[in-house]
């Protein structure tokens, strides 16, 4: 096994294309154990693409992604996930015809069943709303509830590294706070490493230990969350118009 001081996830010079269109132009990034790292940037900057590339779809055309000492650049997605990476993808890709419970069971598919009750209690405590809707089909949930379900499903796989793509999208301010609190709590209590892609830069940077700013497929800035929050460029580009 790799040494503890090595980053859990290290992305080196990753370039990703859609057809002939460049989405990522050589991205370097590290996520250390026990860290919350956020990637902020405008729409279309390539944040979500980076997250998808980490999961192997689309594949990086150049560069290397190393997770826990293993090169996962060319690994099939299901193998990557079995290494302990869970993703809550953009656009709430829940299973619409399965009930909330079944969705959560799918999330726990790779985990020892003995943890199931404990884990499900945990996510229900986090999202009491889901418990109310336990036997409703995923597709009939409201948009925000689907978002909660997507995050809960990712948590059910007991990930070592949790990838969250815009978790605050479409959620009420109170719920956004709850989710961010929950992420912080999971991180502090259980040492969960989190990589977060967010549009909601203010909250994300407040939550994260470190942040990166992506512009046009390049990482242009990095630093601790507090540092980035103070930077004039960041404030101008992502925080003006007030926080939410």
């Amino acid at each position: 096994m790799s040494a503890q001081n090595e980053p859990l996830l290290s992305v080196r010079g990753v370039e990703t294309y859609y057809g002939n269109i460049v989405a990522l132009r050589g991205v370097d990034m590290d996520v250390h154990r026990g860290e919350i790292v956020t990637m902020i940037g405008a729409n279309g900057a390539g944040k979500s693409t980076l997250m998808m590339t980490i999961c192997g779809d689309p594949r990086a055309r150049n560069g290397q992604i190393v997770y826990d000492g293993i090169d996962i650049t060319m690994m099939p997605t299901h193998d990557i996930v079995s290494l302990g990476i869970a993703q809550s993808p953009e656009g709430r890709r829940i299973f619409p015809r399965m009930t909330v419970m079944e969705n959560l069971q799918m999330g726990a598919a790779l985990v020892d069943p003995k943890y199931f009750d404990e884990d499900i209690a945990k996510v229900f405590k986090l999202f009491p709303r889901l418990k109310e809707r336990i036997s409703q089909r995923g597709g009939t949930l409201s948009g925000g509830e689907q978002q909660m379900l997507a995050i809960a499903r990712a948590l059910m796989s007991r990930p070592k590294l949790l990838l969250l793509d815009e978790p605050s999208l479409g959620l009420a301010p109170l719920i956004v706070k709850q989710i961010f609190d929950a992420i912080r709590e999971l991180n502090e209590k259980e040492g969960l490493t989190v990589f977060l892609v967010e549009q909601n830069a203010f909250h994300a940077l407040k939550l994260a230990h470190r942040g990166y700013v992506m512009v046009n497929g390049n990482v242009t800035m990095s630093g601790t969350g507090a540092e980035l929050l103070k930077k004039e460029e960041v404030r101008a580009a992502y925080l003006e118009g007030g926080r939410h």
Partner: protein
Amino acid sequence: MATNGSNRAVAAPQNDPNSFAASVKDAATAGFLVAVLGFFFIGIRTDIAPGGLDLKMRWGAWIVSILVVFVGRLLLNLFVLKTDSPITRKIAGAMPSGSRFAGTGKWLMRALFAFALVLPFFFTTFFPGKDRQFIDLAILIMTYIMLGWGLNIVVGLAGLLDLGYVAFYAVGAYSFALLAQYLDMGFWFALPLAGILAACWGIVLGFPVLRLRGDYLAIVTLAFGEIIRVVLLNWYEFTNGPDGISGIPKPTFFGLELKRGEGGFADFFGIAYDPIQRFIFLYYIIFILALITNFVTMRLRRLPIGRAWEALREDEIACRSLGINTRNTKLTAFSIGAMFGGFAGSFFATRQGFISPESFTFLESAIILAIVVLGGLGSQVGVVIASIVMIGGIEMLRNLGFLQQVFGSGFDPVQYRMLIFGLAMVLIMVWKPRGLISTREPSVVLKEKKRIGADMVAQGEGH
């Protein structure tokens, strides 16, 4: 540092999965699997012997098959599956991109059109001995092109998977045959009627399937196709059942029949009669019918109704939010597609002179659908290429005599015709999963025409 959440044991690979050793190991596993599975299927052969069965071991064949799989898997691993730079990626990079193909597609289309225009004379001039056979094949291909274009409206544009398209073909054929038999109508008079009747049946089919989506839509259309065929088969008094209808009149050239002797086409123009003239005439009829189909489809695509079809394929709910009556839009797609099927059907009837329900089985629907899918949903040129490849290909595979030189005289290529054809189809679909021409051309352009890649275009219901 609290790490109690991450103490779960993870099955991490111990070493580099892309190493040569891993590749060999993987290939060995594959070989072992073949050894086990193939032992009974390949390794043992039973012969009838006096007093029972005789077991004969075929060690050679068994070992060869294991080796083939082992080496094949190893090569795949080394060059594609377990390597940092798969060879497929290099090939993909070297392949012409969609846009470049589109540029050549335009010229290809013009060349094909020019060739189609002079095709009969090309064959009579250069292949005088086989001209009849070739022109007949060209007529067949052209019929399928027309059917493909018709189905393309329903499947390619509106995105409604229709597995019973042959029903409209049958309605068209039987309409003409019955109109000729009972009312003594000629081809040119019956042709529009057949089209209208088929369009009506299109609406009849359209109504019950309006609310259906996906697989259910496909199954109901499939059932509809079968119902039409079974009715034709069993309504003996009217349709003559399995005996079919014969003596269907031939088309006339402005009242002139293409026959030998007095009053015929050749006699009127003062040229020598040749049976090939009738084939050439039939070819031009289907050629013009197909051109009309293409012209109308291309025009419709640029009209609001055509855009509504495509919008329906992309997102039905958004369509409704924009005030599009999706029911009517689907029905027009079904009826216009059916109408062209009906035209093609009456042409089929007049060409054959005899029709029976045998000609309208599900296999026909499947072939037409395969043409549309292989060509690329929504692509007119794609349908042409796919028709030539599929219909022409099946016919060409009849002439596989040369394979006997390779595999010995015991080899009957005709038996393997469908196998080879099926393999070819699979390979094409692996190579081009969205059909030969998968890009979409926008129907209206502001400044610069850009073709749209297949990954953007939705496939509609039932795909």
